[in-house]
């Protein structure tokens, strides 16, 4: 049997063919989530010309950049949320999607992150948590679990990691969840929620990084083994609440952390404009 070649229909429809194949390593979770994202866009019938894909610096930012057929706006490291805030306020009719990494979003970009949550800027953020710095070669991230070896924690990481979804909720995001890249349906549902909602939606995805996280932290460079490890170490939020922090140390907690309705920053500006004109 001969396998024929066929360009994936989502690629044909939404990507710049000349920029494919994309740049991820074999088995990297980012590519998976990109597929789920295109599926959500496709299902929702979003006009790609009105869909601005904003990114930062890191693998998860580099992958969709200039691959997405529509507007691709790549900010400097850590700044996509500040830039997305400007874009969304300047042209509220655009659907703004941000792809960012755990370092981009929670380390250098942490301040923009909590403020974008607080302001409830109506954009959808997918945060790729690979628990490491992928692009720069495997340094520790603010999400790396305690004890893990990385290139800058050669004796094991000594800093407790952030829970990004918890932080988002505490900072004011109207929606925050976490899934693993191996939960396509959950991600798709959250993406659709985010893309159609009127608030700041934070979708964190544990994204397997065989090259850096697998290699340095788990000593599991093989994508299949890493996939198995991921699935074995996934714990539901409900269940996690019954577990000790010691038990949860290297677990990936998945679930929805918050899901509320409240006026977005765009709504509030609209009100403000009316008020200003009257005074």
């Amino acid at each position: 049997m001969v396998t024929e070649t066929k360009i994936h229909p989502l690629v044909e429809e939404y990507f710049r063919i000349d920029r494919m194949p994309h740049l991820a390593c074999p088995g990297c979770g980012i590519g998976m989530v990109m597929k789920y994202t295109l599926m959500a866009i496709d299902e929702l019938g979003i006009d790609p010309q009105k869909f601005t894909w904003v990114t930062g610096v890191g693998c998860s930012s580099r992958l969709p950049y200039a691959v997405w057929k529509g507007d691709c706006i790549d900010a400097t490291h850590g700044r996509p949320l500040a830039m997305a805030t400007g874009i969304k306020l300047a042209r509220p009719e655009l659907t703004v999607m941000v792809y960012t990494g755990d370092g981009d979003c929670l380390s250098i970009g942490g301040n923009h992150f909590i403020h974008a949550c607080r302001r409830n800027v109506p954009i959808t953020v997918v945060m790729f948590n690979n628990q490491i710095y992928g692009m720069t070669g495997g340094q520790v991230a603010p999400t790396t679990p305690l004890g893990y070896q990385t290139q800058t924690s050669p004796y094991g990481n000594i800093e407790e990691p952030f829970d990004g979804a918890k932080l988002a909720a505490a900072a004011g995001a109207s929606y925050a969840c976490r899934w693993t890249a191996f939960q396509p349906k959950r991600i798709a549902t959250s993406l659709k929620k985010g893309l159609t909602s009127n608030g700041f939606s934070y979708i964190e995805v544990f994204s397997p990084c065989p090259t850096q996280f697998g290699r340095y932290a788990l000593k599991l460079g093989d994508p299949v083994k890493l996939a198995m490890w991921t699935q074995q170490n996934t714990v539901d939020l409900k269940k996690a609440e019954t577990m000790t922090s010691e038990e949860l140390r290297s677990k990936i907690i998945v679930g929805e952390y918050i899901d509320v309705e409240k006026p977005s920053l765009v709504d509030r500006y609209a009100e403000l404009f009316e008020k200003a004109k009257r005074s």
Partner: protein
Amino acid sequence: MRKEIRLAGFGGQGLILAGTILARAAVLYAGKEAVQRQSYGTEARGGASRSEVIISDETIDYPEVISGRNDILLAMGGAALTRYLKDVKPGGIVIYDPGLILDVPKDVNATFYPIRAASIAEGLGRRIVANMVMVGALTELTGVLPLDAVKKSVETGVKAGTEELNLKAIDAGAAEAKKLVEKA
């Protein structure tokens, strides 16, 4: 005498290590000067990879291979060969793995040495040491360094526990090269 060596192929083939082994052999065990540089993939891991070594008896100012002055090209992939052949100096040496590279250009003013490094390495039980097979062959074919110095460099420069295997690969490469030269 300045010798400019380029090792090129895919990521994961261990070319950076190969270059480093050569260069540190020169510096630490052969009383020569050497520098080593490499490409840093901004492409997907598994993409192109390149390592450069300059060996000289004098201080090395300019640390890179100069187009048209590349003395030795070690190619472990077709794309790499195509890309870098033009930099090889007239009469230079090209060592390649015919198991990985099927089309070798003709009418080029250079001596081509085919070394089946990958399959020799497989024969030793681990394809991963194809790089050391090539280092052994290169050393033998070019005489740029004494084989002894290279072996010492291997002993102290590879991951602990892998010394023996790597040394075997060096020997196998050197032997294969000898055969080749004798044949010629």
